[in-house]
């Protein structure tokens, strides 16, 4: 233990602790800006400076470790003045039109200015306005708001290993952009949205599509259908002021009806359907000698990653569409037929924890009539929060209600799709029982649960031990992709999710997603599973009925038409637009 004094209070902390953490552990607040739990950003913004007795200059508390006998002052006039000036200088190069920013009241820079008591613009602005990059379906980059903290670079480089964003230039003209100052494009970016999730200001945001949804809701010709992804029920509460990990399934259904949606359905239904199709695909590949290991295909960020960086492993991907797209195809095909409604006047909205889902919904393969997208708009959890606030709904006091039928009858297996390991566990519950023709003694596959990046387990299927693995983050996805490329993968089936923690840590989730928050959402999702009456996808009566009535059999003709897709290598193309942002 190291003994030191912070603001004359004697404290003792573990060796190697930073001054910032030592202060935090002793309830002394040091304001920060670039610092973010789980990331490795240090001393970029310099807001966390403190004074150490005997040292001439101020030091950044986030990157300085404690030493025996240190005397630290976190709140001397000199420190407070320096912090304020540093922040004021950051503000001179920031588009401070806060009212016209989606991050208003949710912005870390705004919050910091408030804490430091900045109530006037002491220095004139030096901001040179630059074009906004909104040339992709998922993310919008506004360089005028960027404060160059480097969080997006860290998450893109170290967690996702894609490294699309980098520091370009230096000094006052330094900026953060993709290579050559180009726009984000689908030739390298997976649109996972982790950059948007960690951005302290409004420099990277999801592409807001709430207006399209309002238009559809107010269009009398349109019948509006909404689906809610598994992970949303444990996170929307946070967006609307509830505690992390609050389960709000029933409130979501009520809120969506109040917003005016005609059919309020659950993506969990098509998650169950995914398990039936994907499970049968796996059994077929194992028994008939197909390409193994089979890789899950529910995550659009992962699909883009494989298509761009590992086209060799595309045959390993399950041909199943994601639950979002299975739902869209069924809504505009089967459901439209069932209710006798012209699919052109159906408007399908999905509520997703994800920004890549916006890209997925726009993919040309995801229109079963060849013209109209099966899912018209994919909203993030944050965007749904916006709709609910705009509508003046007091979310916390809403009564619970149920999802509509038939796409509202779901199982616990579908609910856990929202977390890393969930798709695997759901698949194993079904595949085990189908292959071994006996019920599972224990439904919980605890080996594949939790936030560990790389998990594996062995199951006995038809007398043979089969190895399966679960990975999340693209850094870990790269490991399994390299194994497959080298022919050394020992697994039969691998679940891959792009975001840390799976969908509960998705790029479209409420801001402030940290490991601690992910853990709470994860626990909540297993609680949802535990409370469900039916916990295995193949026991979902609505799924059974769907096969009887319409699809006939898994992997059958109609399944291929509606529920399966194909992948292709994303080619590096010559840039479509000029390098408008290149200045060097």
């Amino acid at each position, binding site marked *: 233990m190291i003994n030191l004094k912070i603001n004359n209070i004697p404290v003792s902390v573990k060796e190697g602790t930073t001054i910032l953490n030592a202060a935090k552990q002793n309830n002394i607040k040091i304001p920060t800006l670039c610092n973010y739990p789980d990331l490795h950003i240090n001393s970029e913004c310099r807001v966390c400076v403190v004074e150490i007795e005997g040292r001439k200059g101020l030091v950044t508390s986030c990157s300085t470790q404690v030493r025996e006998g240190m005397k630290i002052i976190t709140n001397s006039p000199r420190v407070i003045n320096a912090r304020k000036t540093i922040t004021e200088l950051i503000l001179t190069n920031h588009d401070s039109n806060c009212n016209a920013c989606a991050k208003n009241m949710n912005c870390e820079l705004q919050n910091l200015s408030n804490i430091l008591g900045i109530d006037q613009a002491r220095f004139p602005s030096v901001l040179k306005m630059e074009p906004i990059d909104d040339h992709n379906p998922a993310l919008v980059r506004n360089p005028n708001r960027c404060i160059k903290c480097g969080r997006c670079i860290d998450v893109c480089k170290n967690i996702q290993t894609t*490294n699309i964003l980098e520091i370009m230039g230096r000094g006052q003209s330094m900026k953060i952009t993709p*290579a050559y100052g180009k726009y984000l494009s689908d030739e390298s970016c997976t649109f996972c949205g982790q950059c948007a999730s960690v951005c302290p200001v409004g420099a990277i945001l999801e592409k807001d599509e709430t207006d399209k949804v309002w238009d559809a809701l107010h269009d009398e010709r349109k019948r509006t259908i909404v689906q809610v992804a598994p992970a949303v029920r444990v996170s929307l509460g946070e967006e609307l002021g509830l505690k992390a990990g609050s389960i709000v399934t029933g409130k979501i259904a009520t809120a969506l009806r109040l917003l005016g949606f005609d059919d309020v359905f659950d993506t969990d239904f098509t998650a169950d359907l995914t398990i039936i199709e994907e499970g049968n695909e796996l059994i077929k590949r194992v028994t008939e000698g197909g390409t193994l290991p089979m890789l899950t295909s529910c995550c659009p960020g992962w699909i883009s990653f494989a298509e761009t960086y590992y086209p060799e492993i595309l045959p390993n991907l399950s041909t199943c569409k994601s639950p979002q797209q299975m739902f869209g195809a069924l809504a505009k095909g089967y459901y439209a037929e069932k209710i006798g409604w012209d699919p052109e006047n159906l408007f399908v909205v999905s509520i997703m924890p994800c920004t890549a889902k916006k890209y997925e919904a726009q993919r040309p393969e995801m229109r079963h009539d060849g013209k109209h997208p099966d899912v018209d708009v994919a909203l993030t959890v944050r965007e749904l929060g916006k709709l609910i606030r705009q509508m003046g709904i007091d979310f916390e006091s809403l009564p619970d209600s149920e999802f509509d039928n038939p796409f509202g009858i779901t199982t616990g297996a579908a609910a856990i799709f929202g977390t890393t390991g969930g798709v695997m566990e759901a698949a194993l519950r079904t595949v085990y029982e189908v292959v071994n023709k006996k019920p599972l003694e224990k439904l919980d596959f605890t080996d594949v649960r939790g936030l560990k990046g790389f998990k594996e387990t062995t199951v006995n299927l038809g007398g043979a031990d089969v190895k399966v693995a679960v990975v999340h983050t693209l850094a870990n996805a790269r490991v399994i992709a390299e194994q497959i490329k080298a022919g050394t993968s020992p697994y039969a089936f691998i679940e891959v999710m792009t975001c840390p923690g799976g969908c509960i840590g998705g790029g479209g989730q409420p801001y402030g997603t940290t490991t601690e928050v992910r853990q709470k959402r994860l626990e909540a999702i297993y609680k949802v599973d535990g409370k469900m009456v039916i916990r295995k996808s193949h026991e979902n009566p609505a799924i059974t009925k769907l096969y009887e009535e319409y699809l006939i059999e898994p992997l059958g003709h109609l399944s291929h038409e509606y529920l399966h897709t194909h992948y292709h290598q994303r080619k590096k193309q010559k840039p479509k637009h000029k390098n408008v942002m290149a200045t060097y």
Partner: protein
Amino acid sequence: MLLDKILEKYPQQEDSLLEILLAFQDAKINHFISEDEVRQIASYLHISEAKVCSVLSFYTFFRTENKGKHVIQVCGGVPCHVESDFNVAKTLEKELGIKVNETTENQQFTLEYTSCIGLCDEAPAMRIDDKVYTKLTPNKIKAILAEYRVYM
């Protein structure tokens, strides 16, 4: 081809990036690194194109577009600015008939600013390719340019 030959001399690790860029820019006739070459270097080193661009953009010595045969870099440091009773960049602009960041029509000269080149004691200073010129005066600049024009 040239790039392949240079690449194979270096280990496939990120640390080699700067050396590869320098060696390649030196060896190439028009002394600049193109987008396709950035892509090739990135894939050789298993790093992203953005990373290579980031390094390229940090140093004023690197060029990402075709420039004149000779690149004139005027020191933009404060001492160079205050030491001279005339404007170095303006003088060069007048002599060459171009503005800063432009290239002469005959592709012989490109004029640009550089960050401090560390010759503050002999300010004002400029660099033409690898050569440094100090204690500049309008006449000295004319003479230097004349020399380059002769050997064009």
